[in-house]
């Protein structure tokens, strides 16, 4: 789908139009899952496993059933043996036969009130046989380690995972010949890095509401990032034909990856089917921390070699990734991290390998950045280390190495749109990089400045759009894409409006509904603007084609002499008389042609790599996406008394191809920055043995308005030829380089390398003490 130069922009695309649903959000009228009620609705409560690894021997639900208000109890015996999972089908709707992490839902019940449900749930008695637990990937790989998934060989897998024992998957990517390349290097740096698990902490905890109609068909509302993944997961795990389940979306209070695959939808549906009544299940904040998913902790060994000019000759990256109890999106996260481990640079010899290991902890899964922030944290520090040792400016050394337009990523298709150089220029200028060296302040402070670069994909998998002209000429747009607050409804409406040259208030956007919406893989992988936007543009073009056909016949003018005019009108070029869309629509509905419907579907088809030029073993995604680029620069201040580090100012430039809605892109940069800052400085899910020690907002802290810095967001546009009006993704890339840039800033004023995230005040103080000891 190429850039259409016949439709000049200006009516919608490129404008910072306020989001279509903002008014309902500022008046408190937006309805999230917990704001929905069904008559006769029951409330669910969940019983979690007290052990990290155990066989379930028996259930006794008699006492629970007798408790006041309880209508139904659900155990593993009530759900089928079928399994769901994005890459490896290893999860049941509810624990069956075994529990694999402390807190894993093992039973649930539904009662008339929430209070009754919570009071009764602990009356469900479960007998366990405790098994030894695996609490780290290293433990999981030991020869006689306890095995979590005893039937791993039987599980359906969507790619060649190499699963074995507790090894969930393995992936190896290579280009060139890393092993012989070191000899040519003038300088080699090698280090090990670790990153901590981060919790999503969307402000809205996960929730679902399921109802069953008289025909036995399920209607399910849930806080989600994909009605289609919800539908697939619930139906696979409960053995329901997909036609028997309708998945819908209320307003969603943030996702960040937590809500892309299912959370409690399967057990909520199972409870509704069992009790015959609507059931609502809303997680407490503690449950949201404990039983959904989190960002993978990574152990990374990285080695980078350069010539005397600082040009990268080789990079070798090895990762050991903790999967948690279930595969979920983990094979994808690891594979993607390895694909991104070289960073946005020309590296002739590159190898990236990884092992993903099951452990008896909460499953780790999709989280904004999808493995990229972790490897970027490692790789970008090595670039800076090299710059320091060769006495080359950190920006200059990057300019010498960055991918240019027409280069390939991992022997994939040529990159047609690459604004990285301009991103670097932008932050260099905006921050006055050249004139601000890191300095030691009086009064026990240190200041540092650091930057990092990143790339990220947008694309991936399938999507569709349907554009219908209503009888009066206004437009209905249906894409199945869940707006999780980032504004996709508005952006897609802008694309539609621009293509039809109508004001945006002539477009109504349908809520995602598996009954009526075309398939959309989901709101993830920074894909909606690019992938669904292409489908919207295509569907709207189809409507334009039909409009033109009608107009041509009505006006008796050949199509090539017709033009769309702003406001929903079509006319012969140069003529005064025009036809409103209503007239076209009337003719279509009542006289000729039939109601005007345009549709377009696509699946991303470009291969991730050319197997003749690069080697991939266990690549989770044979087709991935186009590339966006970003550069982030931060100023930090360290308190030498305590080691506490704060970001005082930040600049972040992002090449998004084309900003359909510039303000919404800026907010992605800013929100991504602050979420990345939390990950960099103090966010850490801490396990005390098998138990998550800080599953609450008292104990797990995210940034507040008082410590988030001023952020200068800079939009760079290097149009993506395949993108709608040139646009590509913006959702994740704003976070990727943040921990790396903060680490580089710390490294600029403290000796050494930042080996671990978070860069807690404790860790930074240790660096300061080393400096003090040395001097």
């Amino acid at each position, binding site marked *: 789908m190429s850039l259409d130069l016949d439709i000049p922009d200006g009516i919608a695309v490129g404008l910072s139009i306020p989001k279509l649903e903002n008014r309902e959000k500022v008046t408190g009228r937006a309805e999230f899952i917990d704001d929905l009620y069904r008559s006769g609705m029951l409330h669910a409560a969940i019983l979690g496993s007290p052990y990290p690894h155990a066989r379930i021997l028996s259930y006794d639900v008699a006492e629970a059933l007798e408790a006041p208000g309880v209508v139904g109890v659900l155990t593993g015996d009530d759900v089928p043996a079928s399994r769901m999972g994005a890459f490896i089908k290893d999860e049941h709707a509810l624990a069956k036969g075994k529990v694999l992490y402390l807190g894993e839902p093992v039973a649930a019940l539904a009662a008339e009130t929430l209070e009754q449900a919570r009071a009764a749930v602990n009356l469900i008695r479960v007998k366990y046989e405790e098994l030894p637990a695996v609490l780290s990937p290293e433990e999981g790989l030991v020869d006689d380690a306890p095995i979590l998934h005893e039937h791993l060989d039987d599980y359906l897998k969507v790619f060649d995972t190499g699963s074995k024992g507790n090894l969930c998957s393995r992936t190896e990517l290579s280009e060139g010949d890393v092993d012989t390349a070191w000899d040519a290097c003038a300088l080699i740096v090698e280090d090990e890095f670790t990153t901590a698990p981060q919790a999503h902490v969307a402000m809205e905890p996960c929730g679902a509401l399921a109802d069953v109609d008289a025909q036995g068909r399920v209607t399910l509302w849930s806080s989600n990032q994909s009605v289609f993944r919800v539908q697939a997961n619930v139906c696979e795990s409960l053995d329901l034909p997909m036609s028997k389940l309708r998945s819908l979306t209320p307003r969603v209070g943030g996702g960040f990856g937590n809500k892309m695959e299912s959370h409690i939808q399967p057990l909520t549906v199972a409870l509704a089917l069992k009790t015959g009544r609507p059931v609502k299940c809303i997680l407490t904040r*503690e449950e949201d921390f404990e039983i959904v998913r989190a960002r993978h902790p990574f152990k990374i060994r990285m080695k980078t070699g350069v010539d005397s000019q600082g040009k990268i000759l080789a990079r070798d990256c090895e990762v050991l990734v903790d999967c948690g109890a279930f595969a979920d999106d983990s094979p994808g996260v690891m594979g993607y991290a390895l694909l991104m481990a070289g960073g946005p640079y020309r590296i002739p010899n590159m190898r990236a390998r990884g092992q993903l290991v099951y452990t008896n902890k909460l499953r780790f899964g999709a989280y904004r950045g999808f493995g990229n922030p972790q490897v970027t944290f490692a790789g970008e520090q090595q670039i800076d280390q090299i710059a320091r040792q060769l006495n080359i400016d950190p920006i200059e050394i990057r300019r010498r190495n960055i991918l240019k337009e027409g280069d390939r990523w991992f022997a994939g298709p040529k990159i047609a749109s690459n604004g990285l150089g301009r991103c670097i220029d932008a932050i260099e200028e905006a921050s006055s990089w050249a004139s601000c060296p890191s300095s030691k302040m009086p009064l026990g402070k240190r200041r540092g400045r650091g930057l990092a670069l990143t790339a990220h994909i947008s694309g991936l998998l399938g999507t569709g759009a349907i554009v219908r002209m209503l009888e009066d000429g206004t437009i209905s747009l249906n894409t199945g894409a869940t707006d999780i607050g980032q504004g996709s409804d508005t952006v897609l409406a802008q694309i539609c409006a621009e293509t039809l040259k109508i004001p945006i208030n002539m477009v109504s956007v349908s809520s995602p509904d598996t009954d009526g919406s075309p398939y959309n893989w989901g709101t993830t992988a920074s894909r909606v603007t690019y992938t669904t936007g292409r489908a919207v543009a295509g569907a709207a073009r189809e409507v334009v084609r039909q409009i033109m056909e009608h107009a041509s016949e009505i006006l008796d003018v050949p199509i090539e002499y017709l033009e769309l005019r702003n406001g929903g009108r079509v006319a012969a070029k140069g003529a005064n008389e025009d036809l409103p869309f209503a007239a076209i629509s009337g003719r279509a509905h009542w006289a000729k042609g039939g109601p005007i419907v345009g549709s377009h579907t696509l699946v991303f088809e470009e291969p991730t790599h050319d197997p003749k030029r690069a080697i991939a073993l266990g690549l989770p995604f044979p087709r991935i996406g186009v590339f966006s680029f970003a550069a982030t620069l931060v100023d930090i201040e360290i308190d030498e*008394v*305590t080691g506490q580090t704060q970001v005082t100012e930040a600049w972040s430039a992002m090449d998004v191809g084309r900003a359909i809605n510039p303000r919404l892109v800026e907010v992605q940069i800013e929100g991504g920055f602050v979420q990345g800052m939390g990950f960099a400085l*103090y966010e850490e899910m*801490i396990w005390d043995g098998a138990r998550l020690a800080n599953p609450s907002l008292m*104990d797990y802290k995210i940034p*507040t308005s008082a410590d988030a810095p001023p952020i200068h967001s800079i939009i760079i546009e290097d149009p993506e030829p395949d993108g709608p009006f040139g646009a590509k993704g913006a959702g994740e890339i704003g976070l990727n380089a943040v921990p790396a840039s903060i680490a580089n800033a710390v490294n600029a004023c403290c000796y050494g390398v930042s080996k671990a995230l978070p860069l807690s*005040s404790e860790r930074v103080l240790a660096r300061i003490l080393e400096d003090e000891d040395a001097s």
Partner: protein
Amino acid sequence: MNFVVSPKSVDEAVNFLVEHPEARPMSGGASLVAMKNARLIDASHFVSLANIDGLRGIGRVGDSLRIGGMTRHSDIATCDLLKGDLEMIRLAAGQIANSVIRNMGTMGGAIGNADPAADYLPVLACADGEVEITGPDGVRRLPVLDYVLDWYETALELGEIVTAVFLPSPKEARSVYRKLARTPGDYATASVACCAVDQGVRVAVGACGPRPLRSREAEATLAGKMHDVDAIAEFGQALRELADPLDDVRGSSQYRLQLIPRMVSAAIADVMEPV
């Protein structure tokens, strides 16, 4: 009977608590209701102290300053009477949680839990504050360091409530409260309260053990040597020796031990700084 009862006098509240051992006194409710919501407590009633006259407000009583047990953090944080060597109390109040919680939480409620990371404990210990406790056997006062017994354990007996905190009248001298927290409003990872006295300082350290750390002996040793860097370092070490910190989600015990002498030196430098 209703779950929340609202007595009109301290005696009424105390009697109710004695008669209903499963009832809990509620001041601001910030901590208590949070615990109830998390199903960590199972009380028969909450006894609200909100409607009792005389428990709110800050005022002079003879040679002392009295902070009523129901006085909100927001009022303490903006009270002009807390100046000089009592300014650290105001500063500590202003760093509790955030502006909204400060509208709810109270002095009595905050020290009622004896949360080791609570901001008031080190400043009250440093200020030689006394806790007024009213119970079935009457009114008594305890120095703060005798009121806090152990991790989350106070000297309160059944039926007793904190009705006020007494402080010596403010003197013209500098005082500071240094708090290290992961984010603004978090509980302290470590904190130091410090005020200048004639020839020396008083210092108390918070969040590094079940009770605030204070050593009058070390303070006496340091007196007169306020420009002696080594003496100050030794003083910090002396407080470090008293510490009994735990590893927790805010930091390790080892980190806290590293912090104590550094934060103490910094706090002393703050109060010694020429105005």
